[in-house]
């Protein structure tokens, strides 16, 4: 059932329901194949969200008009008496006049990125801000300074900045400019620009009921709810596959050596048995590569999109709030005794804000949908490719074994 337009209270409930749905959706997997009966914790901090390098290709689609290039690389560990943390090099190349120099190179740590994202969210409330990888990791479960973790996070931060840099509005944001170019980031700067949203939140918490969410935004909400569910399921399937593959690998690693052990007590069969053992070993390394690729490249993209959906839902919520504020003001005007005086300008301003918000959101939505299609096309063809490669490696191993086995046999028959 597709929910119709909702009041803002209902909207909140709807979001809660959607979250519950997503959780329940996970239970769908319980009637899937679960050989051991144990389930995987989706919220495992070990798989902190991150992004993919290969998505860069998409961004080059409008490469001709691009005038701002940002990369995040070279992570470095800093140890001081107070704390230990990682900084990343943020390099910028640009022809934009907003920048004093054509090139910058600064070092930033995660909390700086977090600062930037908060600033963007506050100063560009009508826009969809790309997600950052999750901030918190459970101590002991994940080594925050391990090479894999840092690399996964680096990729995610790189993706975040690239998405901002490619955005027609966000890329001109002053905080973004400062983040890329300032030697020392003055995080107090712009503190005065505190959210204008504080005002509208009042209307929502005050129990004002939104008359109707316009159909197109209601459809976005519905879309996001279903998409969250599906991505959650795909994420769980992918994790389960990785788990099954790892367990398969454990058995295969034991399987190959049994052939070699057997070979040691045979004469004529020694070579064929060793050959089979070798083939199994080759298949092991091919599978290992596949599994590694799935967990390091496939899962992070899913996670980025799950967070992206959260960002998108936040923007939708804010839009509802702005509309609620406008409708409340409009109502107040309607109940005035003096109906002849013109509608006050602040009400008109409010209407403008709703319209701007709607326009910005629609543009971001279309852009996001387009990116999403490209990203998933690439992600899924990539997955297919990796599986094909795995099979091709195994195929090559087994095919090379056949002539070895057959030649030996023919040679033996001849000598007989």
């Amino acid at each position: 059932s597709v929910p119709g337009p909702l009041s803002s209270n209902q909207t909140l409930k709807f979001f809660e329901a959607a979250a519950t749905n997503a959780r329940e959706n996970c239970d769908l997997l319980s009637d899937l194949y679960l050989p051991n009966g144990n389930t995987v914790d989706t919220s495992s901090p070990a798989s902190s969200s991150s992004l993919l390098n290969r998505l860069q290709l998409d961004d080059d689609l409008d490469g001709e008009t691009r005038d701002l290039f940002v990369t995040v690389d070279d992570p470095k560990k800093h140890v001081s008496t107070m704390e230990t943390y990682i900084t990343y090099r943020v390099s910028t190349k640009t022809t934009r006049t907003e920048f004093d120099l054509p090139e910058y190179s600064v070092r930033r740590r995660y909390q700086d990125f977090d600062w930037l994202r908060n600033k963007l969210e506050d100063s560009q409330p009508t826009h969809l801000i790309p997600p950052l990888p999750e901030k918190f990791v459970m101590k002991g479960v994940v080594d925050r300074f391990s090479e894999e973790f840092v690399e996964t996070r680096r990729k995610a931060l790189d993706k975040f900045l690239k998405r901002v840099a490619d955005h027609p509005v966000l890329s001109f944001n002053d905080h973004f400019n400062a983040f890329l170019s300032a030697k020392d980031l003055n995080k107090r700067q712009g503190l005065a620009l505190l959210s204008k949203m504080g005002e509208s939140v009042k209307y929502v918490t005050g129990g004002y009921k939104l008359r109707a969410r316009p159909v197109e935004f209601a459809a976005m909400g519905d879309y996001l709810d279903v998409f969250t569910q599906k991505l959650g399921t795909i994420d769980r399937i992918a994790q389960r596959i990785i788990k099954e593959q790892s367990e398969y690998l454990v058995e295969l690693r034991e399987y190959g050596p049994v052939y070699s052990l057997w070979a040691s007590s045979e004469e004529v069969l020694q070579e064929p048995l060793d050959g089979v053992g070798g083939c199994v070993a080759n298949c092991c390394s091919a599978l290992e590569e596949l599994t590694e690729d799935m967990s390091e490249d496939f899962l992070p993209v899913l996670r980025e999109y799950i967070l992206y959906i959260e960002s998108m839902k936040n923007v939708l919520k804010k839009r509802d709030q702005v509309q609620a504020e406008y409708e409340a003001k409009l109502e107040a005007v309607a109940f005035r005794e003096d109906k002849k005086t013109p509608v006050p300008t602040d009400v008109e301003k409010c209407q403008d804000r709703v319209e701007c918000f709607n326009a910005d959101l629609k543009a971001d939505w279309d852009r996001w949908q387009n990116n999403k299609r490209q990203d998933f096309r690439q992600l899924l063809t990539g997955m297919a490719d990796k599986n094909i490669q795995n099979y091709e490696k195994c195929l090559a191993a087994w095919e090379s074994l056949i002539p070895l086995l057959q030649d030996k046999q023919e040679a033996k028959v001849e000598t007989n």
Partner: protein
Amino acid sequence: MMADTGSEEIAVIGNTDLTPSELENNIKNTMVEKGATLLKRMEINVAEAEKRTGKNAVSMQETYTVYLIETRAVDPSSEGANPAPPDSLWRRYSEFELLRNYLLVTYSFVVVPPLPEKRAEFVWHKLSADNMDPDFVERRRVGLENFLLRVASHPVLSNDKIFYSFLTQEQGWKEVVFETGFQAKSDSRLKALNATFRVKNPDKRFAEMKHYGDELQSVISQLLRVRARVADRLYGVYKVHGNYGRVFSEWSAIEREMGDGLQSAGHHMDAYAASVDDILEEEEHYADQLKEYLFYTEALRAVCRKHELCQFELEMAAQDLTSKKQQREELATGTVRTFSLKGMTSKLFGQETPEQREAKIKTLESQIEEGEEMVKDKNAESEEFVKNAWVDIERFREQKDRDLKEALISYAIMQISMCKKGIQVWSNAKECFSKM
């Protein structure tokens, strides 16, 4: 499909079992009078299996499976003419067991082909271990046919009359088997179990072969165990992919441009998940081939044990003869060279009369004569056994190397076809994804 390829392959194994020169060789060594194996004169197959219900010995209702054995005489002169319809009869698994036990006892120098397993072992969890499971019954049918073909192509076993009547005489066969009295002989086999540690001069070749049998049994059972676990995991990997099928299809409902691609990619994921059933069913045939050799190791060790028994009996006879000779010496010279109870008693209770001594020497001499005859017989028996057994062990070794190499080749071919299927499905899926 598996059954077809299975029986075909087995038939090939049976037919190529002996080259003419090998056959000649074996005939000389085993002194079999007939000129060719039964398989050259008769087509044999186990055509089908059927479930039956009846009363057993204690009048309890039981369900069992019977197998239809079809035989047809091969007449080389009438080649091309319409072959006569096959003769057929039904046998239970227990009758196959009886036949094998008879062969085992009667031809103790032969590495007797094993029967397929009575209960499913080393199976991966998806496979039923139920004796009445149709897949199991079918694999057993193939296994029993393979057993008959192996016996029918064996240079010695194939000429056995009991075996022939097993194939051709439905009624009264059991009685004929029991009339041979093979069970009485079988008791001596049990003694062989204890003989191992008492043999003074074991034959190095047989000792090595016995050791090899132990190794082979341990490594094949390990291989089968791990393979079953590998199959379990492979099944898991494939089946979990099937879930993509459903979620892609559900997801496609909310997408415009991506919808079609997702939907059809989902179908390919379904096909991928389903393909593992055939893959693993085919692999089960490979497992059966390995299992046959796992069970063969027991037959190999039985021959080695029988050899130990022969050797033990020979050594006992020789030892007995030596001690008799020593006793005669002692009586004749009146000296006790070594400590013996007899020596002690004669010292304690005084000397015997010369007549008594004379009578004793006489008895001993006739016993020595018998003993010498006995040692001679045992020696001949042992030599004969060693010669025959070694010929059959050599034959077995060649058969094993040939069969297992074939099995490995067909296993590699299975893996190749699995990889090709995998590449096919993922390429199809990739095509769908790239159109999104």
